[in-house]
């Protein structure tokens, strides 16, 4: 740990005697646990497993695309690989990751509760995730799925010769895991806040998950029924989406995207919530514009439901409809912009350190900036008519999903690792890994913007030779990216057992979760806390042991450090 963040230089710390990790032993106490913290760890293991599977497919894709004629895989195998990469990463990694791991672990701690509102339903949601995942694994083992993760009809329901039904059933089932998690969070935040924890004292991580949960419960049932209908069509030959029987393939697209667009906000809002925790903590000041950031999260959730047709600008639908949805798409960008400006403004007047979580936060800022801005290109009708369904789209969403969501996820994992495990990760290798990730990521995905504008369509197993240079760059970046991901897997696991004992609040940070021991007790707090301070208030928390100037909470600008 760097010198600027150490606030106590006393004797080496010891792990607390009783924690949620050692309160009970045995495999049954883990598989039948209702402790939100243990469930979070169950999710951590299973989500990481699926991340590796999705990552394996990604490596195969990039290796295969090194050459224009693609000697590595056959067309069918490649098509299955990119489909399974999408299905695995979206439904089994991105959607659950931050909410089911960090959200589950932290929300009760952050609001001063002993657990979530429905602990057994929490466990149930993990089992549903495992069952859904098993169906999808079964689909992979029996040859995989080759329809693209978007399952467009009638390709998926009539023409595909791959394991469509088990994969669709798997995703259908996993949707309920998402719904139950969202339900749990919504109710918890409404009814389980400790005394004094008013809505506007909540950490923005909680606001972000609240907004995410709204999207989860309103959107996920729609993909469930859509996939249900698609499965019925595939297995029983019904005709809703099959033109040969009077059905309409575009109806499928509307129903599919009605969920799948808000789904991308399920993936990014929690990451934004993490960033809203990291920046105030490592700048040691309140988040600039707290209320605006909270409101922006809700705005993203709501407006996010109104833009789905921007995935369908070129299906031949009404021009009016396209214009309307393009307009709405530009509107949904504004709250994200507001958040980005507020995060940046938080840096001013701060006392900034560059620990690993903060490096991830900076990485997020830069990459989300690119990803979000390139969304504007796609929402702009006059540009989308050229780059729709090209690598421009692929680059855009990877900047947001990987550059944004995964950076947020890793930043959060590092930040809360001491709270989860009681031990600190090794700082210098973590910083190196973060930088490797950043470099590898940009090299992988920036060339894809160019490829897209040049006209390389997505989901191509072979391509015209003039596109090779950028593809080679992209694959080179992917190998660096892979190293960047493997490093944290290794050292975080090592740190969980052998890292330096961290103590209650190593950073120090202001959230309620940092007022208890690390790792926490099973019941989180021995005595229910009573909250009297605002979020990220470094000035009125003497117990943090920091050098606070004489002011007690008046919002004037007090220069807290020397000159430049």
């Amino acid at each position, binding site marked *: 740990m760097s010198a600027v963040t150490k606030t106590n230089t006393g004797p080496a710390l010891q792990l607390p005697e009783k924690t949620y990790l050692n309160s009970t032993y045995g495999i049954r106490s883990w598989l039948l646990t209702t402790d939100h913290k243990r469930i979070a760890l169950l999710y951590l293991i299973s989500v990481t497993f699926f991340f590796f599977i999705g990552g394996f497919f990604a490596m195969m894709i990039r290796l295969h695309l090194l050459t224009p004629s693609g000697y590595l895989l056959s067309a069918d195998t490649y098509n299955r690989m990119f489909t399974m990469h999408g299905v695995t990463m979206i439904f089994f990694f991105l959607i659950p990751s931050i909410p089911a791991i960090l959200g589950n672990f932290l929300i009760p701690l952050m609001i001063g509760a002993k657990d979530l509102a429905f602990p057994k339903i929490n466990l149930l949601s993990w089992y549903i995730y495992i069952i859904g995942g098993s169906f999808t694994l079964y689909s992979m083992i029996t040859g995989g799925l080759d329809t693209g993760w978007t399952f467009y009809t009638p390709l998926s329901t009539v023409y595909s010769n791959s394991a469509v039904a088990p994969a669709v059933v798997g995703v259908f089932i996993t949707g309920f895991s998402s719904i139950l998690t969202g339900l749990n969070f919504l109710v918890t935040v409404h009814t389980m806040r400790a005394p004094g924890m008013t809505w506007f004292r909540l950490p923005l991580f909680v606001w972000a998950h609240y907004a995410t949960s709204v999207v989860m419960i309103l959107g996920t049932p729609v993909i469930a029924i859509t996939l249900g209908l698609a499965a019925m069509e595939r297995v029983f030959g019904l005709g809703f989406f099959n033109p040969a029987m009077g059905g309409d393939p575009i109806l499928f697209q509307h129903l599919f995207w009605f969920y799948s667009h808000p789904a991308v906000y399920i993936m990014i809002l929690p990451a934004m919530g993490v960033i809203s925790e990291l920046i105030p903590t490592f700048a040691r000041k309140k988040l600039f514009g707290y209320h605006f950031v909270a409101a922006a999260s809700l705005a993203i959730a709501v407006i996010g439901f109104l833009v789905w047709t921007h995935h369908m600008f070129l299906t*031949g639908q009404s021009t009016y409809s396209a214009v309307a949805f393009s307009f709405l798409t530009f509107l949904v960008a504004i709250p994200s912009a507001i958040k980005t400006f507020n995060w940046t403004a938080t840096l001013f007047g701060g006392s900034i350190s560059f620990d690993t979580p903060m490096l991830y936060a900076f990485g997020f800022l830069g990459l989300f900036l690119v990803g979000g801005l390139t969304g504007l290109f796609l929402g702009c009708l006059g540009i989308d008519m050229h780059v729709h369904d090209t690598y421009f789209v692929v680059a855009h969403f990877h900047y947001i999903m990987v550059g944004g969501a995964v950076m947020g996820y890793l930043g959060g994992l590092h930040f809360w690792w001491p709270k989860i495990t009681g031990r600190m990760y090794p700082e210098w290798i973590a910083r190196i890994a973060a930088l490797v990730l950043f470099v590898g990521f940009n090299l992988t995905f920036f060339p894809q913007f160019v490829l897209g504008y040049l006209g390389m369509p997505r989901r191509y197993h072979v391509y015209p030779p003039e596109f090779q240079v950028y593809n080679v760059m992209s694959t080179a970046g992917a190998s660096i990216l892979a190293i960047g991901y493997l490093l944290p897997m290794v050292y975080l696991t090592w740190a969980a057992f052998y890292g330096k004992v961290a103590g209650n609040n190593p950073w120090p940070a202001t959230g309620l979760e940092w007022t208890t021991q690390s790792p926490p007790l099973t019941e989180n707090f021995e005595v229910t806390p009573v909250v009297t301070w605002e979020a990220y208030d470094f*000035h009125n928390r003497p117990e943090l042991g*920091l050098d606070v100037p004489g002011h007690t909470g008046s919002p004037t600008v007090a220069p807290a450090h020397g000159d430049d």
Partner: protein
Amino acid sequence: MQSPLPFFPDEASNFAPKVDAVFMFVLLTCLFFAVLVTLVAIYAAFKYRRTSPGQVGSALEGNLLLEIGWTVIPLLIAMVMFAWGAVVYVNFRTAPTDTLDIYVVGKQWMWKLQQPNGKREINELHVPLNRNIKLILGSEDVIHNFYVPAFRVKMDVVPGRYNTLWFRPTKLGKYHFFCSQYCGTNHAVMGGWVTVMDPAEYAAWLSNEAGDVNPASAGEKLFTQLACVTCHLGNGTGRAPSLNGVYGAKVLLADGTTVTADDAYLRESILQPKAKIVAGYQPVMPTFQGLVTEEQILNLTAYIKSLQSQPVPAKGAGVAPASTGKK
């Protein structure tokens, strides 16, 4: 695609400069703000870096004017981007009335195009320079998409409905077109070339009905027309064996016997494909009984004969491994 590191495709239609213009506007605006925010963040990161372990930041919480400012200004800029893009798109979706109409049918995994006078093309589109062209798009099976990067236009091809796409070619040359909506196994090879010709040359090409009398060339056309090419890929990676070098060679069958691939064998393979299955392949070839005349079989045979000199792939050839295969 001249330089080793290209960024833009050719601008070959009326839409290309319009799309490029709105793209550049959005690009430069976004670049400006991205660089601005990045520099501001880097500046703040350095200016306000921590200088002592216990140091905290200021009590600054927010600023209403700033919030309003950075909400309204991006909103206004976004509206300009939206409006400019919408104008280009509406133009694209509103075909003029004086178009030359070409019918396009997409199917797994080829394109069939028909010129106004009935002349047909496979995976090729010839158009005259500076005429308004409208493509009427239909699909026989799944959703496809007809995309010409140099023209900056694309449109989904949806089964059960017709979609239209219009453009005016403004530059002579040959340009890629691609299928741009994932449609199954050979989605990536389902493309071809758009050739923009001088109007006089186009007229001459259009009225040239005679075509080739050479049987091998006629056979080659049939080979594509009847979609043989979608399975019998020359490089051996298709669902069916490559036919390079097969004429006259010994073929290893699934039941372990070998047979010489002469004219009779080829004819039987076309009319009764399940009679003799090549080792390592599935009996999925449909029969062309009733779909081809004897003359057409002769032309196909002549074409396959002409493939004798083509390189035989190491894997996926119809040629038996034990024989030398070459004549």
